């Protein structure tokens, strides 16, 4: 009897828990769904009361309007190019330095490593104005390279790579390679890199998504719509006083879909990269 009562109580709290999580999931998903609804409706649907909450048939028409406003595919390509190059450069610099900090002995090593950690304290705003002039002086204003350069600085990457190399690359392996006459760079290339591929994936995701979603710097450097990244291009959609909501959300929808697909395919990797990046 008592047992049954207990069970009832438990199942009631279970219902509450599922209800709470269900509502949280719904609130998380709803804006995505609603973005899709608006992307498929004429702007006028927006004025109807009660609000429209089912998709319509204007997915293509609205996107056509986006294409008239911004060079959508060019902007996606620009973002993709910037993020890929920045990611590759950061991975290379970080893994090389991480390898050195993990496996080589040289005077001042610890001091240099602490210096790298300290650089994380300098906040980006302090750099915004001088970096703008620096980029402008170098003739890189309004170029993709001008966007990229500031993102090459990534102390977190070195920190993660050092951790990973010292944990997963055995010293014996390096010693053995040295006895065989391997140069240090060859050791890096043919022993370290293959072992730390998972760390590349983690850091790669962190860097790629961070640069993809960044706005302030891209917005500051880029002027010509031809050079816009997707974030700047999307932002420019709302910069008129006469706003076409269906068009805007269609642009957002098509820019978000590739990210969502990649996320759903690799969600484990995404989630673990976030905890790696921030917790360690």
């Amino acid at each position, binding site marked *: 009897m008592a047992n049954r009562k207990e069970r009832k109580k438990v199942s009631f709290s279970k219902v509450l828990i599922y209800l709470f*999580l269900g509502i949280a999931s719904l609130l998380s998903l709803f804006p995505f769904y609603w*973005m899709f609804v608006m992307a498929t409706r004429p702007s006028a649907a927006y004025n109807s009361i009660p609000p429209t909450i089912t998709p319509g048939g204007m997915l293509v028409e609205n996107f056509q309007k986006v294409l008239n406003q911004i060079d959508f595919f060019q902007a996606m390509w620009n973002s993709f190019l910037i993020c890929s190059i920045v990611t590759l450069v950061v991975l290379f610099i970080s893994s090389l*330095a991480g390898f050195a*900090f993990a496996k080589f002995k040289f005077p001042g090593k610890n001091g240099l490593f602490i210096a790298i950690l300290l650089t994380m304290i300098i906040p980006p*705003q302090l750099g915004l104005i001088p970096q703008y002039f620096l980029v402008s002086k170098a003739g890189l204003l309004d170029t993709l390279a001008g966007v990229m350069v500031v993102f090459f600085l990534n102390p977190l990457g070195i920190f993660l790579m050092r951790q990973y190399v010292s944990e997963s690359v055995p010293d014996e392996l390096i010693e053995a390679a040295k006895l065989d006459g391997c140069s240090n760079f060859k050791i890096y290339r043919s022993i370290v890199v293959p072992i730390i591929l998972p760390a590349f994936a983690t850091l790669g995701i962190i860097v790629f998504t961070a640069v993809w979603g960044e706005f302030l710097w891209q917005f500051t450097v880029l002027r010509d719509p031809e050079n816009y990244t997707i974030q700047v291009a999307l932002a420019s959609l709302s910069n008129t006083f006469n706003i076409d*909501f269906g068009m805007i959300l269609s642009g957002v929808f098509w820019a978000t879909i590739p990210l969502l697909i990649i996320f*759903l395919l690799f969600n484990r990797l995404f989630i673990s990269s976030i905890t790696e990046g921030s917790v360690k």
Partner: protein
Amino acid sequence: MSGQERGVKKRYRSEKKKDMISGYLYVAPFFIIFGVIGLYPAIFSVYLAFQKWNGLSPMSFVGLDNFRIVLEDPLFWKSVYNTIIMGLMGTAPQIVVGIVLAFLLNLTFLRFKNFFRITIFMPYITSMVAVALIFSVLFSNHESSLANYMLGVFGFDPVNWSTSEWGTKIAISIMVFWRWVGYNTIIYLAGIQSISNDLYEAATIDGANKFQQLLYITMPLLKPFIILTVFFSTVGALQLFSEPTIFLGAGAFTRDEALTVVMYLYRDAFKLQSFGTASATAIILLVIILFFATINTLITSGNGRKKKGVR
């Protein structure tokens, strides 16, 4: 024999030298990049804060004038006020909700775990620009916008979300909350998973209910993770820029309801060409960030020690 030994020694020594050179060579790229786009700009920023400069004509030294101009500008203080209010409303609830969500997501009997985790985390992968645009439609001033319609259902008057003092702040805070709560949840979840299950089992045997377990086991052991997220949330919240800029659209820099400190800085520099005061603002912002990050971190760690709930 001794010759061979000497050879080994020599080789060892040259090996050591090689390692040293490689070491310096491999860490050099970072320091070169840091010097050019990290350190130099930071120093230049400090220098610029004492100059009057429009970006073109020669600079002139003005001492502390820029700081005085900024600190005496009511608009600057308004931006500080806006930033703190929106930061508080956008991030403080995240910590509470994030901990509860993480705790629930870790319950052993829970089904559809992965589904819940993925959906709650999903907002984080969308860019802030996308979030701001989606929410600017959800929270538009129209009577028919979804936010106003919902208010109407509950018997409230529609709100001018993008023009009123509190409408803008609430809408922007909700955006920040929506995008980041899943991120915090995942970090807390990682923290909770590092807590041994034995503790919960022992507590269950001792008759502690789930709420007591959350309060007396999860919370204290989660402390380092909470400190971490409080630190990042504080720093992030004080740097608020994209959300209000995009949410307010064309009028973003001409109105003050949601003008943040970084927007004030941006406006000084790139709309008014007053780079000296903008640099001074950057330094003042740095001080504000350090101040709040320290205070919040201290409060969080202090609370944990007293075994009280962390807010």
